[in-house]
């Protein structure tokens, strides 16, 4: 295989790995925000999920138990958000900030209490996490030119949750655009009054929306600590929830464009460290720290409508008050 092809495969492979948690979180945000609930608490749910997964996987030795705990922790925070924003019609931004800070504090406090390890969990062994899986025939087909190595290197050899991430995109699309539930959920985010007058409960729809968001963030959290990584490190979400939020806006709240935004941001993240010390003609050394914040800058520019336009769901962030 030529050198360049190997490099390209490695970059694409890295992109898939770094994009996976972004995709799950962005899909979570998509479902929640399409139902009308702003979710800046993606980061907190991701972090709580990551901690719960690592802690339970450590205690039980089973990654599946860890995954279950991650889903439960993330859903619990989603319910806090729902209780504040849907039941009590509180400010959705404020509630999201609360969720993020709560997760930040709780994960470290509980980690210290359980493991006394400075807010980390002990490193997980191979049987305690989701390992890379070889897809069928990947070794046999490896010798087929181009497609064989593409299949063996890029498509095969990821852990279960990467496949879950890529699968979540068509699933969310199908759920939101091909089912009756999806139609109603999107209507709750665009024109809740119409949903209400059709006799369908807006709060119930929105609760289901944030529940799905909680589950997806839980998957992403488990990915960070018991699939991609091997244990929880404090603040390990490191802004990925916010990056996913940026991807959600960049992809204009539509599944396929959001997927591409996540892949683009994942690609930038993969390429940035490789640019360390590279000299560009005219520019000089590449400022890597600035490359890695490019996604945020692009999102600001897009949101300002300087190229294209990102229009959020119409009722996004507006609490629904039923008329009597």
């Amino acid at each position, binding site marked *: 295989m030529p050198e360049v092809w190997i490099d390209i495969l490695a970059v694409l492979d890295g992109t898939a790995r770094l994009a996976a948690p972004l995709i799950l979180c962005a899909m979570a945000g998509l479902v929640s925000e399409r139902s009308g609930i702003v979710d800046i608490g993606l980061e907190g749910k991701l972090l709580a999920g990551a901690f719960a997964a690592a802690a339970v996987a450590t205690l039980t030795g089973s990654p599946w138990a860890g995954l279950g705990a991650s889903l439960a922790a993330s859903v619990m925070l989603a319910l806090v958000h729902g209780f504040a924003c849907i039941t009590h019609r509180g*400010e959705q931004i404020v509630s999201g*900030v609360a969720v993020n800070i709560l997760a930040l504090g709780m994960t*470290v406090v509980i980690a210290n209490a359980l493991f006394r390890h400075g807010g980390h969990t002990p490193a997980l062994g191979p049987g305690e996490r989701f390992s890379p899986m070889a897809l069928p025939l990947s070794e046999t087909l490896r010798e087929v030119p181009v497609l064989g190595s593409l299949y063996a290197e890029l498509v095969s050899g990821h852990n279960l949750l990467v496949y879950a991430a890529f699968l979540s995109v068509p699933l969310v699309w199908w759920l939101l655009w091909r089912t009756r539930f999806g139609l109603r959920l999107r209507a709750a985010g665009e024109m809740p009054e119409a949903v209400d007058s059709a006799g369908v409960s807006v709060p119930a729809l929105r609760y289901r929306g944030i529940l799905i968001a909680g589950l997806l963030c839980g998957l992403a959290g488990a990915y960070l600590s018991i699939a991609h990584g091997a244990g929880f490190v404090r603040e390990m979400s490191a802004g990925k929830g916010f990056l996913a939020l940026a991807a959600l806006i960049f992809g204009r709240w539509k599944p396929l464009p959001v997927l591409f935004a996540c892949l683009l941001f994942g690609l930038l993240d993969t390429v940035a460290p490789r640019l360390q010390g590279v000299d560009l003609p005219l520019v000089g050394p590449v400022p890597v720290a600035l490359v890695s914040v490019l996604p945020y800058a692009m999102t600001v520019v897009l949101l300002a409508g300087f190229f294209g336009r990102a229009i959020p769901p119409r009722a996004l962030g507006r609490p629904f008050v039923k008329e009597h």
Partner: protein
Amino acid sequence: MTGLPRWLDIGVLPLVNLALALLAAAVVVVLVGEDPLHVFAVLLQGAFAPGALGYTLYYATNFIFTGLAAALAFQARLFNIGAEGQAMLGGLGIAFVCLSFETVLPGPLVAVVAIAAAALFGAAWAVVPGWLQAYRGSHIVITTIMFNFLASGLMVWLLSGPIMRPGQGSPQTRLFGEGVWLPAMHDLARGLGFEAARSPLNLSFLFALLACAAVWALIWRTKFGYALRAIGHSEEAARYAGIPVRRAVVVAMALSGAFAGCMALNEILGVQHKLVLNFSAGYGFTGIAVALMGRNHPAGILAASLLFGALFQGGAELNFEFETITHELALVIQGLVILFSGALAYMFTPWLARLLLSRSAARA
């Protein structure tokens, strides 16, 4: 807004919400296996023991600035959650002025220019999201979040290259000359003939108090403050009344960013005496909790800042006293305060109104 009498709304509701937050934190402590009363006692002792008060007030200084920043924007119903990034830029402003001028100009003059630069840089970082919200319709919450990350990228880039301390690998600038440092309170006290314990508390605490007074006067005694409050009540009505809403939004964000930038006075000009990475340490977000608890009023913000200052200083003591509880408990309490006094602010309003008002009605 709540339909409650003012004394209930301002005096009682925040205390009820604080009590709820502490109660929920106590549940966490019990789950971890410690005695909550003991934990809170250690917290209080750690915050107000002799010698600790200076530290409590030093933390409070940060929270007053970021709390005022959040509150000023809240008055016009703007969510500025970019105080973190604006504070970083404030620090950058101080560093630029100090590193460029400290050898050319006398120290105190450099300090004055540096203070102005902190406010100016912080304001500039907030004006862009403000302008984008007012004139391009982008949501200020998202833009300010993005600007936090942009600021942090900018800091990493500058501190690991262009303005890094020569001949050293860690991301910080060289120490500023002693002439530009803000004097520490214990030194000022000694000058006046008192003896005070050494602490990081410095002159910027007094600036913070002045800022409280200035914000009060601005919001309740000027035409601009009236415009802000009008926008906060109803943007539509404000526009109909002829208030230039867009311009007011931009100016409000500028002022908000200026106060957030001034947080760097305390941390950089007062304590660190050099620009370091991550000096804002999440205090920008604490400002949101402070503003919510203080009901966006400078007096309330002062009180809430003292409370959070005590929480952070007392929290540091937890590390020494307990094996299982660490100072991150302060973060948990902070999150709960935001939840109860922000997102769930009015959960207990009807209940409280019935309980207290029926009794006073019966007495009358």
